[in-house]
């Protein structure tokens, strides 16, 4: 269970220390990470949820790692997306070094990208596996610092400003979360999540702790109206970094928020609190979609689309405990997995388009499909998942949301979801139509051909998001296994 954390950690250290063969180290770590997570899934299906005590010290004193259904699924998402990002980043940087001016600047960027990315991956895996609220704070900080440094890597003035704002907002979120942890420790005296589940009672201190931790995590997950930092940061970063930020980083803090609300503090949440989160989510969907339609640059449009899609995750709050037959986590997992794959594909396509054309203005993207067939195909398929058409994972998530809202007579959420899907269709097709219209004076631009490393990861991620809906029984099975009452303790800290 510790190897998803330790392997990228060592890889990051080695990438920083040695200056050569960084891609080989990073690729090896990403592949090993994926294999370790697959093995962990297999063990979960065999043995059920597991705990691993670090250093052999039992809770409440020691720190435990926990693997159960949702954690393993998020780890899988991170591992697969991480492998795609690693391959894509290699293609991206090689293309820039070989074909564009200022090669030394691009080489410097590449040199620092690998250690930062590997350490971020270690932090993400640590977040998904951890079972101790203070350890979660440290992993949140690792992710924040690595993400801010990666966001500033591109060197553009806009990206420096956006990264500075992101770092400050992230730090504010972490501090608020830490204040919540302090209140919780004052009330209960325990830092371990499992024991906290039984000790949490309805008191003012605990409510304050939940409120503070939620606000901190909402800042990090960019829910409207706290989303102001997200579009500039994601749009002005390098393409692989945008994929990392949109696909993985925002999911980490959301996962923590959902887990806190629905597993630890379950007694405290009132229907009005759930409806409040749902309302903010609805506003996010509509606002993000409207802003996405108004953008002139492809990357800004995709960034606002992230704001919109995160709203779906929050609409799941009032709709997750309605039906006893579906799992609490199922809506969130499908939406998160689908969004991670689709958004990665979109940002990878945006990066490929930028490298090919030198700009990403939407109105000048005419006829790109002639020279970049694979990225355009990937864009279309990813758009299918964003819009929520069958058989994609986005469809499964929206289907679960719609059925929940209709069976519980909360039909207004269904209206918002359908409107959101229609708006998503508008902004996806706005760009798609540009891709396919070839103007009369079109000539194929003579620039260097894109390496397959840039095109194929986008297509593969898009196809995964499409076919995840067909294979929907697998995540459901993992979720069902992972939430039983039996837990096994593995002192050896399974690899």
């Amino acid at each position, binding site marked *: 269970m510790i190897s998803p954390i*330790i392997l990228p*950690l*060592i890889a990051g*250290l080695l990438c*920083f*220390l040695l*200056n050569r063969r960084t891609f080989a180290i990073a690729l090896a770590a990403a592949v090993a990470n994926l294999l370790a997570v697959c093995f962990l899934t297999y063990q979960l299906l065999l043995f059920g949820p597991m705990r691993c*005590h*670090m*250093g*052999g*010290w039992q809770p409440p*004193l*020691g*720190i435990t790692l926990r693997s159960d259904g949702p954690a393993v699924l998020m780890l899988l998402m991170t591992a697969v997306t991480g492998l795609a990002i690693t391959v894509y980043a290699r293609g991206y940087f090689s293309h820039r*070094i*070989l*074909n*564009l*001016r200022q*090669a*030394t600047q*691009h*080489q*410097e960027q590449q*040199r*620092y990208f690998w*250690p*930062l990315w590997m*350490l971020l991956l*270690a*932090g993400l895996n*640590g977040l998904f596996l951890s079972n101790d609220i203070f*350890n979660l704070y*440290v*992993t949140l*900080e*690792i992710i924040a*610092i*690595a993400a*801010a*440094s990666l966001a*500033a*890597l*591109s*060197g*553009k003035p806009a990206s420096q400003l956006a990264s500075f704002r992101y770092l400050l907002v992230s730090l504010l979120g972490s501090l608020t979360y830490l204040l919540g942890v302090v209140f919780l*420790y*004052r009330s209960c*005296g*325990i830092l371990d999540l499992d024991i906290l589940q039984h000790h949490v009672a309805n008191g*003012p*201190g605990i409510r*304050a702790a939940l409120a503070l931790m939620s606000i901190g995590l909402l800042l990090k997950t960019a829910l409207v109206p706290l989303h102001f930092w997200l579009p500039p940061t994601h749009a002005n970063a390098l393409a692989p970094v945008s994929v990392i930020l949109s696909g993985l980083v925002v999911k980490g803090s959301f996962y923590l928020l959902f887990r806190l609300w629905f597993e630890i503090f379950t007694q405290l949440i009132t229907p009005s609190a759930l409806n409040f989160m749902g309302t903010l989510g609805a506003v996010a969907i509509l606002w993000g979609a409207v802003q996405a339609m108004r953008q002139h640059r492809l990357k800004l449009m995709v960034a606002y689309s992230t704001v919109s899609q995160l709203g779906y995750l929050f609409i799941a709050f009032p709709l997750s405990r309605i039906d006893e037959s579906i799992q609490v986590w199922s809506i969130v997992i499908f939406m998160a997995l689908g969004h991670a794959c689709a958004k990665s594909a979109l940002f990878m396509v945006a990066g490929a388009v930028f490298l090919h054309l*030198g*700009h990403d203005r939407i109105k000048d993207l005419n006829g790109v499909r002639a020279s970049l067939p694979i990225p355009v195909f990937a864009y279309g398929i990813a758009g299918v998942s964003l819009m929520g058409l069958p058989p994609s994972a986005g469809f499964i998530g929206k289907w679960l949301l719609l059925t929940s809202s209709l069976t519980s007579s909360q039909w207004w959420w269904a209206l918002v979801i359908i409107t959101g899907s229609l708006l998503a269709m508008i902004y996806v097709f706005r760009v798609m139509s540009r891709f396919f219209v070839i103007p009369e004076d079109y000539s194929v631009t003579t*620039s*260097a051909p894109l390496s397959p490393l840039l095109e194929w990861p986008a297509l593969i991620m898009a196809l995964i998001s499409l076919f995840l809906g067909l294979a929907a029984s697998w995540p459901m099975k993992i979720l069902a296994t992972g939430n039983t009452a039996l837990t096994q303790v593995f002192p*050896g*800290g399974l690899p």
Partner: protein
Amino acid sequence: MKTEKKSIRRIRNRGKRLDAWQLLLLFLLLCLTTVLGTIIWTMPENTSGLTDAVARLQEQSGVESPVTAVLLNFRGYDTLLEVMVLLLAVIGAWSLAKAPFSGQAADTGPVQMGVVRLLVPLMFLVAAYLVWQGSHLAGGAFQGGAILGAAGVLLLVTELLFLPAIPALPLRIGLVFGPLLFVVIALFCLCLTGHLLGYPEQAAGGLILLIETACAISIGLTLASLFAGGHPEDDHPQSVNPTEHSDKEEWP
């Protein structure tokens, strides 16, 4: 006309009075503070935290100071991640800019040079003592590392000539040495006792001291590098000659 009046009022008000939004913010924050304050005031004092658990297992930890025991033994995994945070900050700092050394000899007077010559070795000594003392009194890797960092800052402020010429590889080795040793010992303990960071009971004190020393050196170098503010000159790999130049180079 209206915007002019508003901007004039804002210029006149700068630093003196708060406008409407800021007053609203002040009011909201006061409400928040009173709410949280009353919660703290009325919170019961009955929880003893984890004091008893620590006191019970103290002898098994290999050190006498409870804080060091918690930091490096019971919750050592947190410390491992925290050392990575420091390293991340350095990598981020290096990725942003080159370390701005002025390049010319600074005009240091005899008093400054004398102070530096006296203080820096003393600081090294105090840092070593703090690291060793961490096992039974307040001290440890971070405290010693902070003193070492301060020594580095003193050297940087004096703008000694040998500093820009420090090659990158020893610096990187020094920075990574602490975290890497920590991870190696953690894995070593995994092989020995079957738990990550589960020190064998006889060797716990010695292993903790080893980790603390390595981390103190790395932390000192980290803090000094953060103060230097950028990467050293020879940090990136050899530049490859680009084969073609493209005319359309915008900001990437």
